[in-house]
């Protein structure tokens, strides 16, 4: 039996003036999933997350979180979401202890012992005003607030943007801890694909408001490979082969990033007289660049 959907987005579109920020996006995230949302700046990641939080109304399409409309029932939905934004939106005049005290009032499931454990682990000074903390320390304080009530859904919007490796490690640790709690779900957006690759079991790649690719990390990696081949004679330009997203090389030796069923590639290469030398798996970074990088287009990457 499949897990119930924590997030269910159907045909969501959003326009800001003349700019189409989200274009017919559909995304389903079952309970217990860790989904990494990746995309360029301005791809629509934050817009998508704001729809999930109910901060933006769906102009077209439907957004349901725990089966509820987050705009119509913010109290119900938000009480089950732990949210950390990249913007550092905590009130700077509050002290850390005041922040925890304030936040505790909103969540009946607030776990003070767990909050204090996280404060100790992150080395936060309870007396310090948030305005005097470094950006990394403020992120840690925000993380404590986002996690201390064991939310069923953890939503992290570029949580490690601009932070040092130690804070990033703390944030990754938080995600891992949340995963360890059975049935909890994480959705986080990031530019740091190494991190996404490390903790996610599902990936969604956004480009210009559209979801280019979504699925499990293993499946996505299995669909992509780098094929190194040698042609019988030197070539000035790369050939056009179905499923090939990018070419590199020159003369007789070329390598291609291929997306799709590997069995489709070999007959096409054989027709050109090319000999396949080796096949390599791709990192998420390579996959992302091949889909989103210069020259890549949505049409090229559709399976």
């Amino acid at each position, binding site marked *: 039996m499949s897990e119930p959907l924590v997030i269910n987005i159907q045909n969501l579109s959003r326009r800001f003036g003349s700019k189409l920020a989200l274009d017919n996006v559909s995304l389903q995230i079952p309970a217990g999933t860790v989904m990494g949302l990746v995309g360029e700046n301005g791809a629509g990641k934050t817009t998508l997350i704001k729809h999930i939080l109910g*901060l933006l109304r769906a102009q077209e399409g439907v957004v349901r979180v725990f089966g509820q409309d987050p705009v119509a029932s*913010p109290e119900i939905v938000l009480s089950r979401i732990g949210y950390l934004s990249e913007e550092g939106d905590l009130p700077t005049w509050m002290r850390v202890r005041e922040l925890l005290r304030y936040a505790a009032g909103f969540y009946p499931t607030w776990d003070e012992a767990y909050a204090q454990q996280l404060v100790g682990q992150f080395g936060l000074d309870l007396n310090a005003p948030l305005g005097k903390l470094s950006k990394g320390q403020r992120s840690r304080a925000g993380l404590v607030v986002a996690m201390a009530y064991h939310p069923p859904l953890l939503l992290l919007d570029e949580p490690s943007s601009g932070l040092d490796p130690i804070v990033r490690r703390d944030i990754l640790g938080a995600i891992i801890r949340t995963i360890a709690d059975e049935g909890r779900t994480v959705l986080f957006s990031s530019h740091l694909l190494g991190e996404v690759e490390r903790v996610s079991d599902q990936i969604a790649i956004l480009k210009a408001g559209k979801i280019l690719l979504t699925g499990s990390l293993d499946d996505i990696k299995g669909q992509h490979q780098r094929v190194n081949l040698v042609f019988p004679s030197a070539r000035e330009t790369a050939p056009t082969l179905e499923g090939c997203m990018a070419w590199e090389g020159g003369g007789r030796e070329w390598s291609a990033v291929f997306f799709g069923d590997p069995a489709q590639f070999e007959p096409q290469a054989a027709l050109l007289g090319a000999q396949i030398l080796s096949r390599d798996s791709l990192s998420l970074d390579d996959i992302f660049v091949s889909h989103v990088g210069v020259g890549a287009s949505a049409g090229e990457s559709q399976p």
Partner: protein
Amino acid sequence: MSVGFEMTRTLVYRHRFGLVAMVAYLAGFSGYLLGIGTDRLPTLTAILFLGLFVGGVYLVAVFIHPDSDVASPGSTYPPHYFTLPVKTRDLVLWPVGAGIVCLGAWMLVIGVVMRKAGINYDPIAGALFVIALLTSMQAIFWTPLGIPYSKLVLTLIVIAGIWVISVGHPLFGFAEGERLVLFGAVILVSIVLTWIGVASARAGDIYRQVTRSEDKPTERTRPVRVLPAFRSAKAAQLWYEWRMQGKTLPILSLLLYVAFLIPLFWNDTLSPIYDLAGITRDITTPEIPTYLKTFLPALLFLMPVYGWAIGCGARKSDVRRSDRAFHLFFATRPTSDAELVWTKLRVAALSTLAAWGFLLIALLPLVFMEGGNSKPAFGIVAKAPMYAILAPYLQGWVVVKVLAVLFVAIFFTWRNFIIGFWTELSGSLFLRYAQPAVASILLVSAFTIGIRFQGMTILQSLPIVLGLMVAAKFALASIVAYRQGQSGLLSSSVLLRVGIGYILGVSLMGYAVYILLGQAIQMGDLNTSGSFYLQTFTLLTLLCVPLARVLLAVSALSRNRHR
């Protein structure tokens, strides 16, 4: 081109719409005053003068950088200018000079127009007064004082001081020439202090102070006072609103009180209160210190004004300067839009009561100051503490009337505190800036139509205009309430409570106004029929108790929170 000139040009360009609107208003006002004169429509002229006052406040705000956080301990001078390759002298003198020229020109033009229209007014003194205000505000705001809220404290003290110089010079016995010299001294000292303050901020003084405090070894070892968690979201939000906005008004009332007391020590004359004469069927008239008689009403009047200033966002709680969307920190808390607005209303009430409570208690010891009784042709015949002098006059209706005045003042403080919520929470620039202008234009247009085309006097058209406004208010409130009920934004029980609150507020306000109105009619202050005033003040009472604004605040917040 000088960098300083370019900075000033940018500042003026940024506020071009406001400045153009002000110039247009001044031109219209001048044309009106010179064309019609002050005799024909004195009430309308007085109303239009308010626009000039607001324009002056706006100009001061432009040249002290209006985006600044008034509670900040640091300098509010825009820090990105500090990295420009330009001397500190230019950073200071260009905006200061531009402000002086603009405000000076503004006041001089007003002064010249007023004199042409036959109003006795000294344009030089007026210009120096506002320039002294501007330069002293620049000195206060651009200096990194290092203490939160210190800018507010100093602002109040300085404004009180300049005000005393401006209007109190006959009372304190210095001549007109000396007044101008005093203004000049304030301006010069302020410019020097501004220069020192900006240089200090540019050198990062406040930053060094923060760094030093962070380096203190005791910071981490200081014992942490454990705070019990709030029991509910309501309690947490109430605490937040109080810390953020609620405590400001009581603090201001304390500072205002201290600033009010200082000149009292120089007062050694008594003035009669003729309104009380005759109540005891005696021919004596009670007298109290002149300073108290002159400035105590002003002190009490300032409280509703401060309520308005705070409520309209002197300290912006949830709307960031660059991003007008509802602050993420609150928007992502699991609480309803109505609950967020309701908490703000409650904190406004608590803040108002705390401020007035403090002020009234603090004023009580003043009854031990010396007062007197006077008789015609004899002057002061007996001196005694004020409580002894005034006690015989505190009879039934006098007490009721004093309480009515206090009720109206307290109510207006709360009302002014909250009337700006619906625009502030909306995050809409149009609502914040254009809506008051549009409302003012409609109001003036309605009066003008009545006067010009219907041949009415301004007083005759007043009940009609007010009646239209009341009708518009109820229509708007009904539509908003219906839509909120339909969308589930407000439950029918909440709407019912809002309605009951409104009826209660109108009843209490109406009764207080009725008492005061009766006093005014009885004393012959009003030269028109009582029914006319009763009609007018009933409509005004219906208007001033906020109903549509409270309902709109919830809708505005909802739209802003879920864009």
